């Protein structure tokens, strides 16, 4: 092992910023991060061992304890649940003889849940040693179990297990007319940088990750910084459950995304860019490297791009299972080889980003749109959409509809129009913008896709009236508790408390005061948390409580107070030890229950 670690560190030039890449390789090879590897890496990278342990324990895909040679993870996103994930997971656990969250005694296979893998339009989905499995069913699970029992290497598994479809259902401005490689850059150089930035300004383009900061303004701020070293970062850590548009953009439109990044670099004066790709999209890594190589050959990356005095290149960095890294400052920390903990702001990344240098961080779709605007000018783009939301939005549609997939709409399109197009009826509600967004009910389908009405990063999950609202909210609330980075008190403790309090109500142990207590807690977590994760973690509860208070109320017991624990269940250990189960060995939760 010493030799392997030495080689790995050398390949990554002994840079501590490369820690995630190195650990991904160690995990891939040994199926855990051995203590000896940590010791050796601490020496080689000249960082404390505690730094490495911190990173290993932070990211879901790294483990201090050995996992199976086959690391199987099944997506626990609500859309996978709706497609029968629970039953499949039970079947898989039974077939492989391994408990969920455990490793088989022979060390061959481990099985666990994972957060949304971005394959909501073709679930139930999973990962085996990092490679995406789609459309799982019992037959495929039998096949997988057989492959594992034959000890067939994952590289030799049948390709049909790993088919990922683009499912592009509706195209508009951006997806119907793509930018030929180099075309936008040519225009930038002929038109000039100032005029290009003006076009971007005129277009009204706002960040597509959901927050909606004006792109031209961000780029201008960065360009105006005194420091000569600047960076461009593309945020492809698409972790919001129900979002998968960036997966498709990077599979089908990567040239244009890279073109947009290069345009940005030209305008702000950056020579290095990064694509931060979520670990779940490992299958895109090699194809994307091939696109970058092609662009280098074509003179669109590297030195003297298109013969100009402009050098720029792009590296791809893979994440390792952490939703929080979609937050831009956490993403930058992760790029630097650290735990993905959001920074204190100010300063903002645009002045103090990667390695403390001015950095533009934008969403995949923002760069795609920027390339379009650089080529075609801002006017056409600005003529589409609403007053405050220009252009189009690419949606990832999943859940209860006949045609899930990718849809591009002008801003200002109504939810009802979208539902008609994707074949959804009998709608209970739609989760717009993912768990951190808004749950809208069937009474609000006239509402519009726009920053001024329903802002969204692109997640659009449809639920029909046969779905249980509280199951949905429960899934989302557990998701946030799992993904909280733990930095600040209100989110670290608050998301776990939200989970406990909601579980209490859902399991029928709630009483009159419990919904009020839940709502108070929601407000506290929302108002006091450090970053967007905590500030939106209570949204699933708050937005459904507002619309469906009766659903919550109907779960409550008709008493004024119910303790947070089950008294009788707490006596179970004592009953087993005493080997008795007579009526006197049981206690009612409250006296009234004796009547």
């Amino acid at each position: 092992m010493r030799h392997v670690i030495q080689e790995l560190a050398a390949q990554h030039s002994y840079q501590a910023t490369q820690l995630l890449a190195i650990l991904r390789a160690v995990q891939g090879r040994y199926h855990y991060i051995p203590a000896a590897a940590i010791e050796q890496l601490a020496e080689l990278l000249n960082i404390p061992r505690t730094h490495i342990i911190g990173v290993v324990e932070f990211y879901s895909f790294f483990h201090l304890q050995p996992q199976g040679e086959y690391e199987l993870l099944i997506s626990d996103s609500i859309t996978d649940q709706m497609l029968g994930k629970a039953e499949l997971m039970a079947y898989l656990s039974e077939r492989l003889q391994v408990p969920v969250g455990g490793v088989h005694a022979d060390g061959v296979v481990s099985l666990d849940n994972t957060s949304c893998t971005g394959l909501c339009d073709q679930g139930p989905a999973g990962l085996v040693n990092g490679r995406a499995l789609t459309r799982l069913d019992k037959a495929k699970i039998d096949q997988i179990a057989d492959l594992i029992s034959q000890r067939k290497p994952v590289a030799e598994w049948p390709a049909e297990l790993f088919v990922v479809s683009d499912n592009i259902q509706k195209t508009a401005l951006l997806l119907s007319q793509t930018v030929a490689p180099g075309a936008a850059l040519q225009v930038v150089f002929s038109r000039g940088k100032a005029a290009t930035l003006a076009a971007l300004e005129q277009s009204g383009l706002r960040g597509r990750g959901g927050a909606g900061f004006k792109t031209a303004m961000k780029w201008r701020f960065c360009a105006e910084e005194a420091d000569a070293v600047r960076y461009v970062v593309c945020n492809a850590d698409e972790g919001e459950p129900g979002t998968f548009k960036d997966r498709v953009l990077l599979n089908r439109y990567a040239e244009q995304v890279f073109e947009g990044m290069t345009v940005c670099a030209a305008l702000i004066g950056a020579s290095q860019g990064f694509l931060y790709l979520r670990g779940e999209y490992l299958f895109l890594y090699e194809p994307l490297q091939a696109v970058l190589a092609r662009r280098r050959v074509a003179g669109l990356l590297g030195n003297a791009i298109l013969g100009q005095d402009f050098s720029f290149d792009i590296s791809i960095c893979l994440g390792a299972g952490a939703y929080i890294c979609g937050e831009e400052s956490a993403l930058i920390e992760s790029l630097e080889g650290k735990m993905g903990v959001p920074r204190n702001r100010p300063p903002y990344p645009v002045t103090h980003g990667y390695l403390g240098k001015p950095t533009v961080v934008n969403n995949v779709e923002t760069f795609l749109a920027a390339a379009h605007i650089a080529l075609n000018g801002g006017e056409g783009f600005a003529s589409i959409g609403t007053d405050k939301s220009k252009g189009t939005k690419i949606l990832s549609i999943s859940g209860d509809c006949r045609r899930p997939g990718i849809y591009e709409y002008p801003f200002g399109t109504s939810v009802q129009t979208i539902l008609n197009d994707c074949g959804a009826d009998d709608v209970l509600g739609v989760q717009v913008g993912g768990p951190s967004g808004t749950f809208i009910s069937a009474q609000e389908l006239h509402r519009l896709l726009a920053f001024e009405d329903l802002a969204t990063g692109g997640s659009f999950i449809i639920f029909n009236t046969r779905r249980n609202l509280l199951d949905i909210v429960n899934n989302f609330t557990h998701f946030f508790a799992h993904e909280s980075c733990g930095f600040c008190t209100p989110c670290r403790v608050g998301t776990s408390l939200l989970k406990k309090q909601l579980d209490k109500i859902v399991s029928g142990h709630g009483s009159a005061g419990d919904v009020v207590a839940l709502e108070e807690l929601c407000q506290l977590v929302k108002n006091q948390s450090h970053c967007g994760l905590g500030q939106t973690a209570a949204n699933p509860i708050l937005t459904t409580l507002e619309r469906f208070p009766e659903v919550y109320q109907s779960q409550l017991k008709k008493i004024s107070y119910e303790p947070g624990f089950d008294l009788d269940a707490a006596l179970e250990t004592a009953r087993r030890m005493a080997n008795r189960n007579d009526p006197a060995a049981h206690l009612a939760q409250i006296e009234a229950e004796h009547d």
Partner: protein
Amino acid sequence: MTKTITLDGKAIPFADGQTIMQAATAAGVYIPHLCHHPEFTPHGSCKLCTVNVNGRNCSACTFPAAEGQDVLNNTQELNADRQKITQMLFVEGNHFCPSCEKTGNCQLQAVAYHLNMLDDHFPLFYPHRQMDASHPDVLIDHNRCIFCTLCVRASQQHDGKNVFAISGRGINKHLIVNAESGLLKDTDLAVTDKATHICPTGAIISKRTAYQVPIGQRVYDHQDIDAVSLATEQAHGE
């Protein structure tokens, strides 16, 4: 002319580069805090020092003071939230004040008194946490750790060492020490290190000093934390 911010309706001066916390402390105004210490880089994680700046919640310990700021600090609403955040810290760990040797000298306990916290409010987590008594002079009781990182920062920024770190994610966060064995005895921590004495709770304590000062004669037994905090932190020139 001196630059000023408005803090609870009163103009207070600040110098460029000062945080709201620094300006407030210098002006003799206490803003509750646990993870902040004037000698070290602010961390901004405990969120007790949240103040409202022109309508937006910000951490006073990290947010730069600037002209035109109307800052709310000592309001009923903010203090109610601070009380709840303190309750969160209590239920997350295992804090049993009557049997803790830090009682009376504990900032978590003192802040709780200051905020008039009378119960835990939230359900207790009762996490299973370990103790590390391996070091001859210093003991870690993980039950009482609130992840403020003061020991991490004191070791790095004052002692010139790197003894402590926070590891894990979310509710599984925990304090780790820099030794292959994972034990405090195998680190280069000395009882004289600042990191040994900086813990606001009883998570890191010097051995054999527990009851040298009797209960009833300790720092916060007779003084509120606002007075103690201002007196010591103003001495640091904030």
